[in-house]
């Protein structure tokens, strides 16, 4: 069984594309080989900045011989039909077999496809793979037509078996496959031949190239942590950065340097972000102080001066970058100290949030109004929540966030503290954006919760007001994330909030209506004045309106414009009537997804959604959890069966009789002991259920229902509901109605499956 080694050697492949490219190369080549009838034992793909490599072990030396039989036309079919068959099979008439079947003599083609040698198949598959490689962006170069991520320089394609190594013949756009590659661009640039994967890996290492990205990552991390530890520091973990850096070097050399004394006062987030974004440096923290004091850079080569020149150069670039950062930081601090956070936020009046939803300042005013209302519901002081809302986005106007948008909120916290604002307000700057994703923490401090909720409700109601809802996979304003944020904030803190109230309030604060209303008023008064002017036969026009004739022509245009605006207004008002229900339904949909991830069935949620107060998510989930737990017990499943049976009989009888059996079951008509017993337990259940429901003690309510299970079972076993005696029948149907009423108090059990 031969082994196969493929290396595609090119100019520098972007680091972010390498992981995906390894997978694609492996999949495309192995799929192609298997499709062509070859098998292999093991496949592994590797990459460096300059090469993509695939190693296959135990490849079959050739594909199996295949025999294919195809039925053709009858022997006496018209010549054209037979010729067509010959063409499609590639055989001649005398190579066809003639067999007799039910319908007479029929022609058959027996085609033997001899197995093909692996190299031939490999060449075909590799050619196809390179030409159709799914790079996120690819390019042409020179005068050629081939596309690759960057210019492709050479192809190594070698099969190795017991007899030695042979090159798989293959030429692509002038590049002939061979058995040579090159080492490190600077340290070992010469070409050399390889005979097998092991030989390749060993010779690459000798030529200062570590092939396996995982090995480079491990080496970088090991050296970095060791070096930091030796100086009493720890490297700030960053898996994404590690993978990226490993994709930028073939021969990693880790160097550590100190951050200039002048910059150590910058917030650690600023140091970390600046170093990572601009220079792909790791941060080294002093564990005693929590400050970031050193950096680690990863060079791509060894040098005679052990990296001294490289480190000095990097340090110099870092100083220039951090000088900028310090300039922003000091400038921002000066701003907040002189004009406060609200002064810093002043410019947000000129920043458009969305052309239909006003400026960032408009948005902040809405969030403030909402936060003030939410505050008492989540245990926050309304004035504090309002203040937090006013300043939480101020840092969007800071120089630092202008440079590093990912520091929004974080910088706000620092600046709010510098401005002497209360800690609760400072915390809300960062926390009000949270949770940023399904795995991000949910704020718990009341002021933060109030502003975070207000922020998300404003976003949702804003885009609902202008009917910009997510569709399919399109969610450009991240409204699903905002909805999940609302859900997690409410549930995570156990807050009792009527979302409908908040939605209606939020919609009411949106400016969209005003933006139509203003022009309508203006037009109305203009038309009125013009009509009044024109009613005077002696009026000759004014400088503003033009001549009388021009004014007469203007009037119908203005009227049409007004009608169009009024139509827009009518449409909007009609939509705003249904928008709250629509938005609540959207939130319920997201809640279902959220709860399904936590193992609660969708029908259980539906059963609870059908109950009143479903816009109080905490209550809703309490109910759903209790119901889900109850349905997991034997009593629960049996009671559900009993309920369904009672409900079915009752529904059928009501449909047939055209009446509603809802009142008047009387124990004196009980004909059977089981019936009498049922009366008794229903009385008891009602007595327990009412206070349990009133105190929202769903487990207690479920327990009360569980007590019904045995008597209901016994009742159905002992008696026939549809008795011949009409009095007894009516009484029993009314009794079933009591079962239904009691059960439906807890949740709409009719919506449960099974």
């Amino acid at each position, binding site marked *: 069984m031969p082994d196969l080694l493929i290396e595609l050697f090119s100019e520098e492949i972007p680091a972010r594309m390498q992981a995906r490219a390894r997978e694609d190369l492996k999949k495309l080549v192995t799929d192609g080989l298997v499709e062509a009838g070859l098998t292999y034992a093991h496949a592994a793909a590797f990459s460096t900045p300059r090469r993509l490599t695939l190693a296959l072990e135990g490849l079959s030396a050739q594909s199996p011989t295949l025999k294919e039989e195809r039925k053709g036309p009858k022997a006496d079919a018209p010549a054209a039909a037979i010729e067509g068959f010959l063409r499609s099979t590639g055989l001649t008439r005398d190579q066809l077999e003639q067999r007799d079947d039910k319908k007479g003599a029929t022609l058959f083609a027996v085609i033997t496809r001899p197995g093909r040698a692996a190299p031939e198949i490999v060449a075909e598959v590799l050619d196809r793979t390179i030409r159709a490689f799914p790079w996120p*962006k690819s390019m042409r*170069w020179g005068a050629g037509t081939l596309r690759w991520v960057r210019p492709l320089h050479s192809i190594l394609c070698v099969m190795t078996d017991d007899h030695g190594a042979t090159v798989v013949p293959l030429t692509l756009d002038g590049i002939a496959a061979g058995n040579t590659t090159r080492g490190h661009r600077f340290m070992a640039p010469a070409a050399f031949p390889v005979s097998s994967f092991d030989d390749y890996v060993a010779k690459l290492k000798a030529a200062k190239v570590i092939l396996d990205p995982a090995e480079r990552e491990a080496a970088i991390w090991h050296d970095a942590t060791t070096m930091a530890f030796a100086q009493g520091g720890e490297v700030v973990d960053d898996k994404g950065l590690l993978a990226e850096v490993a994709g930028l070097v073939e021969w990693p050399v880790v160097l550590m340097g100190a951050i200039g004394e002048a910059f150590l006062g910058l917030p650690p987030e600023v140091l970390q972000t600046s170093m990572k974004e601009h220079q792909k440096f790791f941060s080294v923290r002093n564990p005693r102080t929590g400050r970031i004091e050193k950096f680690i850079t990863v060079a*791509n080569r060894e*040098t005679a001066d052990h990296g001294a020149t490289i480190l000095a*150069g*990097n340090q110099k670039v870092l100083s220039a970058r951090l000088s900028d950062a310090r300039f922003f930081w000091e400038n921002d601090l000066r701003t907040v100290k002189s004009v406060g956070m609200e002064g810093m936020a002043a410019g947000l009046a000129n920043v458009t949030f969305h052309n239909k939803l006003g400026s960032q300042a408009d948005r902040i005013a809405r969030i403030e109004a909402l936060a003030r209302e939410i505050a008492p519901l989540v245990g926050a002081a309304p004035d504090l929540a309002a203040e937090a809302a006013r300043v939480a986005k101020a840092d969007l106007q800071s120089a630092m966030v202008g440079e590093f948008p990912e520091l929004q909120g974080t910088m706000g916290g620092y600046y709010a503290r510098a401005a002497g604002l209360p800690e609760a307000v400072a915390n809300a700057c960062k926390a009000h954006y949270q949770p940023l994703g399904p795995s991000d923490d949910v704020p718990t401090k009341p002021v933060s919760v109030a502003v975070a909720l207000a922020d998300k409700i404003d976003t949702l109601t804003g885009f609902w007001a202008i009917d910009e809802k997510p569709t399919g996979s399109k969610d450009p304003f991240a409204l699903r994330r905002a909805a999940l944020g609302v859900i997690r904030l409410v549930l995570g803190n156990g807050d009792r909030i009527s979302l409908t109230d908040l939605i209606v309030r939020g919609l009411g604060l949106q400016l969209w209506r005003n933006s139509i209303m203003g022009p309508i008023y203006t037009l109305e008064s203009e038309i009125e004045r013009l009509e009044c002017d024109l009613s005077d036969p002696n009026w000759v026009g004014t400088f503003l309106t033009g001549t009388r004739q021009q004014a007469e022509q203007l009037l119908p245009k203005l009227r049409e414009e007004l009608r169009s605006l009024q139509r827009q207004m009518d449409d909007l008002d009609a939509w705003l009537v249904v928008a709250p229900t629509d938005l609540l339904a959207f939130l319920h949909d997201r809640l279902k997804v959220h709860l399904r991830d936590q193992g609660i069935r969708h029908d259980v949620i539906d059963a609870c959604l059908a109950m009143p107060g479903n816009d109080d998510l905490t209550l809703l989930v309490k109910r759903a959890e209790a119901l889900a737990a109850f349905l997991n017990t034997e009593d629960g499943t049996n009671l559900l069966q009993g309920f369904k049976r009672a409900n079915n009989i009752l529904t059928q009888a009501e449909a047939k009789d055209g009446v509603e059996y809802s009142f008047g079951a009387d124990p004196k008509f009980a004909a059977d002991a089981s019936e009498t017993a049922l009366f008794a337990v229903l009385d008891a259940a009602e007595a327990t259920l009412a206070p349990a429901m009133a105190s929202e003690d769903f487990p207690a309510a479920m327990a009360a229902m569980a007590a019904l299970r045995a008597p209901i079972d016994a009742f159905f076993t002992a008696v026939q509901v549809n008795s011949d005696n009409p009095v007894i029948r009516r009484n029993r149907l009314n009794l079933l109605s009591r079962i239904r009423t009691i059960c439906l108090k807890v949740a709409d059990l009719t919506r449960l499956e099974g």
Partner: protein
Amino acid sequence: MAATQGTPRSFQEIILRLQAYWAAKGCAVLQPYDMEVGAGTFHPATTLRSLGTRPWAAAYVQPSRRPTDGRYGENPNRLQHYYQYQVLIKPSPPDLQDLYLGSLNAIGIDTALHDIRFVEDDWESPTLGAWGLGWEVWCDGMEVSQFTYFQQVGGHDCHPVSGELTYGLERLAMYVLGVGHVMDMPFNDPDSPIPLSYGDIFRQTEQEYSRWNFDQADTAMLLKHFEDAEAECDRILTASQPDKAGRHIVMAHPAYDQCIKASHLFNLLDARGVISVTERQAYIGRVRALAKRCADAFVTTEAGGGQAA
């Protein structure tokens, strides 16, 4: 050769060494284009010559203007007027990376001591309707050049592909010469009878242009000039073809001059802060439309490999 020269001593020596290096590699060493441009790419030797099938190899210094980057000569790294060194070779030779690294050695960057990296950076010019793939080249963590394989220019696919190298001369020179503030950089040899620093030559102009760019430029006039340039470009391209002698001369270059003008006028208007975010896109689109039509015209000419001659 380069190694024996040692480290350059002045800004101009770096330019001279680049000129000598690329001349030795066979490039036509051109002179700067005589118009105000935002980058070396605008020179017709790059924009227009990257189109069509005829081979091309040119290198030149291009003074470039970015009015919004003016800092009155006070910022150590930012200037509203600066120099780019530009190399364009079509078709891009297979050893372009090595040629480029040779140029670093020529200006005194010893690749055995420094860490040179090719870091992904795709280039796009919305005003020229152009894009390409390539890298920014890092030397010890500092960006010293842009390296791009042009894929499309003026809306035309590049066939063959040009390789473009752009060196930001001031930044590169400051690094090589070990200077912290651009104005302190020696322009000629510091041992000359009359040594001149970059600041001796440009501090005052940076102050004057910063004031004009930001506060004084007459925006109504600039706007009118923008519209005039746009109209003239259109007129040149749509002028009835045969001239008095009955010749058909397509005027791609004169039209492209007007496109360059429009682009720079837009930059000036932008620096004056009179263009809103939404208008910005519209202006860029108008310049791009001109660039595209110039490119359409150029590819019909002889230099563009077309049939019009």
